[in-house]
């Protein structure tokens, strides 16, 4: 039982870590704000969620475990809202989403 | 280890000087404030690093731990951080007033406006 939990926790931690790295890559490589927001909000939340769950499985006491579960709950709430507000205000400021990603003015590595 | 011991301090000195340079070279008042903050924050890190003991832990009493980092620099820097943000707040509100009355926050433009009056 203990070993199974440990393995599960490690799997979660590793998945969370890799997702976070992928999200970082996405942030750099994606062409415009709206696509980047996907990487920054969705993938990041997923990564953090996995890491926190993995850590919660390792928690010494129930109190610590609950705290470790509360954190991702708030994180899910705030990241999603922040992304929503960000894209909304970008839209209001007149930033148009890219229609054709192939014709992006800043191919990977370019300026933003 | 011997080398690393000083290397750490030197990095902090580099950071301090980056902030100090920004403060001195910038003509925009907000940039100057950012430079000042960089400078101060790096000094704070430098200070706290002086209290660190290799192998020590956070200065919160726990059973089975004997070596703690010195809490005194922590307390000093807590004070210094708060003092720093207080002066930043005042500085920024001064910038607001300057922008209101001069219409600019570039140092040389302000100077030329002052000479004109």
């Amino acid at each position: 039982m203990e070993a199974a939990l440990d393995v599960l926790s490690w799997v979660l931690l590793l998945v969370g870590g890799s997702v976070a790295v992928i999200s970082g890559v996405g942030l750099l490589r994606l062409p415009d704000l709206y696509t980047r927001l996907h990487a920054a909000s969705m993938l990041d939340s997923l990564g953090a969620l996995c890491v926190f769950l993995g850590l919660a499985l390792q928690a010494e006491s129930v109190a610590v475990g609950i705290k470790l579960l509360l954190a991702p709950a708030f994180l899910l709430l705030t990241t999603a809202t922040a992304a929503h507000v960000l894209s909304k205000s970008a839209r209001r400021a007149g930033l148009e989403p890219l229609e054709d990603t192939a014709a992006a003015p800043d191919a990977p590595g370019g300026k933003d | 280890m011997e080398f690393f011991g000083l290397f750490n301090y030197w990095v902090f000195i580099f950071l301090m000087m980056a902030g100090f340079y920004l403060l001195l070279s910038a003509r925009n008042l907000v940039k100057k404030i950012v430079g000042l903050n960089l400078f101060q924050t790096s000094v704070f890190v430098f200070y706290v690093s002086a209290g660190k003991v290799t192998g020590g832990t956070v200065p919160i009493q726990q059973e089975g731990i004997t070596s703690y980092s010195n809490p005194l620099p922590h307390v000093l820097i807590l004070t210094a951080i708060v003092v720093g943000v207080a002066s930043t707040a005042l500085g920024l509100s001064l910038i607001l007033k300057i922008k209101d009355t001069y219409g600019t926050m570039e140092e040389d433009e302000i100077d030329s406006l002052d000479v004109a009056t």
Partner: protein
Amino acid sequence: MAQIIDIVLLVFLCTVAVATVRMRDLFGIAMLFGIFSLLSASVFVVLDAGDVAMTEAAVGAGLTTILMLSTLAATGSRAHPRAVRWKLPLFVVTVTGAALVYATTDMPRFGDPNAPVQTHPVAKHYIETSQEETGIPNMVTPLLASYRGFDTLGETAVVFTAGIGVLALIGRRRKKDGTPVDENHGEDIRAEHHAVVRVVGKILIPAILLYACYIQAHGDFGPGGGFQAGVVFASGLMLYLLLFGVAAAARVAPFAVLERLIALGLLLYGGIGVLNMMLGGNFLDYRTLAENAKDGLHYGIILIELGVGITVAAVVTTLVFAFADHLQRGPVHRQD
């Protein structure tokens, strides 16, 4: 392991610092400074300074960045591109840096347990004797609030000065009910009323305020205390301001009330000190507050942390509200 984390953080710090110096867009600079501040908070954690890390994250990365951004929102974010003065600044910086490096060459190495900082009896007193004297596990708290309580009183006075100073600078003349006399409708800075944001905000604000109370009370056992709690409490009110605009926020926490709270917190702190004098001890000698010295210390620390919390929360709220109010008023080209 800690060393690897340390090196990675230092590399990040240097990169961000260089980028800040080279960047021209002011919004970018302000954000980079926020990142720098957050990174140094992580360095503080590596250096075992939990309380400092928390304060740096809340005050340096949070509050300072918010104030910078709201200043930029009012002033515009583009620095004029022009020839940079670099000769004299570079010279001054090189000399200063060289002096600092020169100074470090005779210093105890990083983390040396035999350095004077660690071996001086004062350090021993704070680490060992403080347990017997106060019974508070977090050594930072009694040191902050009692051994060096006078410093902290001064620090609260600095925060007080900042609050009063900013009000004196950009505060407006107000009527009895708190509305400004020179009513000047600029664009309201709140986000558009939207269901998502408002609902989430309403869920978060109580949680934030509750968390602030937790930090306030938890200072004895872990990182926390009046300063951190005050900033977190104020951040709840800031969120309210973002959701419902300056006018509504100023109805919840009117400037006149905030200004009095700023004063009351400092008075509470100083008043405890005067009370100690009347009870026969020295200024800020909390041991006079109860028959048992330990209990007295405890009561004293709780009370002054409360005073600090009130002042800090009120000042931070005042700062943000005043900046937002100024922003909303729009540019006023008049000399007063």
